[in-house]
């Protein structure tokens, strides 16, 4: 089962993801975790130690932002670090470049196209 940690300061993101992945959740192929800030995400990760985790993170957040979280995750979980997918605003090449440098594995653009996300997660048709 794939564990996905969704990090965003928008509270409605939880309802959206739960609805979008309701089939996968029902079929126990995906387990979703939510954090509403960078700090919260790190706390969450501690509890989820040694478990394969996919992190979907927003960038602009109060407190620890997406980059800081990415940096912290990639430093802390060296072998093997969790896959981190950054969600950026449309056409924000600067953020894209910076996230790549910090070791981001993939990108999603807001508004998120969930079919693409599922493709990336190899969840389509499974």
């Amino acid at each position, binding site marked *: 089962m794939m564990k996905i940690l969704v990090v965003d300061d928008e509270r409605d993101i939880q309802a959206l993801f739960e*609805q979008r992945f309701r089939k996968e959740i029902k079929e126990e192929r995906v387990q979703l975790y939510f954090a509403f800030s960078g700090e919260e995400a790190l706390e969450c990760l501690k509890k989820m130690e040694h478990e394969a985790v996919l992190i979907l993170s927003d960038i602009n957040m109060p407190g620890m*932002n997406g980059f800081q979280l990415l940096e912290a995750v990639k430093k802390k979980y060296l072998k093997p670090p969790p896959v981190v997918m950054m969600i950026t605003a449309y056409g924000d090449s600067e953020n894209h470049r910076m996230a790549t440098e910090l070791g981001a594995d993939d990108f999603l653009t*807001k508004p998120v196209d969930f079919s693409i996300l599922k493709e990336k997660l190899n969840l389509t048709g499974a």
Partner: protein
Amino acid sequence: MRLQFLTSCFILISLGSGYAQESDLDSLKKVLAASKNDTLRLILSGTIANGYSEVNPDSAYRYADQMLQVTRLLDLRMEEAVALGEIGYALLNMGNYPRSLQALLQSISITEDASCERNVLTEKYPASDEFTDRSQSPRMQRLNRLSRVQQYAAILYGNSGNYEKAITFYRKAIPNAEAAGSLQILSITYTTLGRTYLSLNKKDSALIYLQKGYDYAIEAGYKRYQGSMLLNIGRVYLSMGQQELAKQYFQRSLRLSTDYNYYRGVVASNLALADLYKISKMRDSSLYHIKKGLVTATYLNGPDLLLRSYTAMAGYYQGINSDSTVKYQALVIKINNEIFNAKQVQQFQNIDFDEQQRLKEMETTEREFQARLRTNLLLGGIFTLVVIAFFLYRNNRTKQKAKQHIEKAYEQLKATQSQLIQSEKMASLGELTAGIAHEIQNPLNFVNNFSEVSTELVDELNDSIKDGNLQAVTGLASDLKQNLEKILHHGKRADGIVKGMLHHSRNSSGIKEPTDINALVDEYLRLAYHGLRAKDKSFNAAMHSDLDPGVGKVNVIPQDLGRVILNLITNGFHAVSQKKKTSGNGFEPSVTVITRRTSTHLQIIVKDNGDGVPQNILDKIFQPFFTTKPAGQGTGLGLSMSYDIITKVHGGTIDVDTKAGEGSSFIITIPINA
């Protein structure tokens, strides 16, 4: 060779001028006859004429006439006047008063006109008489000539019995002689003037002028007429009954006149002594002097002197020898007839009349000249005024142009200012753009995805209805409703952002409208925050709001007030992020926006915990273009515009409360109308 000849001639001339002897004159006449140089001939003939002037008037006349011809040939007007003067004086001594007057008046006419100064003989030529000084300026030379000829004319009028006119000419001659600085002429003029007064029996005046003439002669070392001066002084004394004193003067006069070859003086002195002796009944002595006088008068062939000698002779013989009396009386009558015959008198009067006419014409000319001068002055004045008016006009034009330039520049400045205000708005809009993109993509994300997922839920709902699974239907319907609410919520959110952005970017409506202040503050706080975060990824600051729920709606211009709030918040975030860079991890940057409402006022406070505004720039921060941001990052108009919006547009105040190291609070206070 030629030069040598000329030089020797000049030596001869200088010998000849002054007290010329017959022998000197003869030598000069020979040189003149041999000379072909016109200028030399002019000077020679003038010198000879002058030498003969009181010795042989006929010869004087002849040579003066020769001189006149040459002066006209050479167009030397000044010398022409000299020649005419000599001619006039010779004719005067010849008893030809009409022609004398004519010549003298011509001479006066020339020397009264300054144009004769243009062509004068230079200093290298010797003088033809003792009055000439060629080293003087042409003007001085002219005045010298003029005074001399005026003096001749005065003598002429005196001799013809017109004393009044004589005095008039003396009065003209004196200032000219003074201007020319000629002591000699002054000496002669005062002497002859004194004699005129004596003729008028004004003894005191006569004595004063004669004495003055004598004094000038002594001062000038001018000896020729000194005898004549003493003679006349003696005559005054004689008329006063002081015979002994008079006799002394007469004797001295005779001596001096003889010594200095002034033959006319010799005649006059002898006759005066004869007269004196006659009164003293010393008849032999009287006759002796009459005879001596007559001899010299005969030698000179001067009609006036002969007349006086014959008169004295006739007087002497009266009552003694009737034949001799008759003889001399006949001679007297003859000469008198010659001089004062009807024709001559008529001619003289004619010339005198002509002269009067000429003087009148001159006066008319003078008046015309004055009138012309006045006209010219007037025209000149008008011209000057026109010039001044032109310059004033031009000056005015320049000022007008300058004013236009200034007005144009002012218009441009105003346009630039509004452009700057616009660019300030755009700059703050730019800061917001990233924030807005972020802000708008979040609601869009929800709207899109909740819609899409809702479609799926509807399909599921239909399936559940078909299956008759009511529990599932209820759950799905609940989810759908929740989704739709979220779609609506985020749709409105996006709408609000877009409206806020438009509000900010478009020109102020300038109309106050009831505005939800808390919503406005919240919106701009978020926009500012995200804008700064988008620009500076490392930026992180807590944003707090303490909004008084009782604030509600207040009549403001929302775009303008929003701009002020945005500006103050942006400044606050900037301040805390600056402090964050310099201070350690212990610093927690925060910006707080507070709203409060009293019964009369709305208060919005933007508070940060940055470094505060330094005291030395506190009074400058509201000035246009003042900025502490690096070049290119701030327009320096934010606070200035905010100040204007709050004070001018909303009638409020904007104050700053700052403490170094602790932070600043910008306090906006706006009165609530109605």
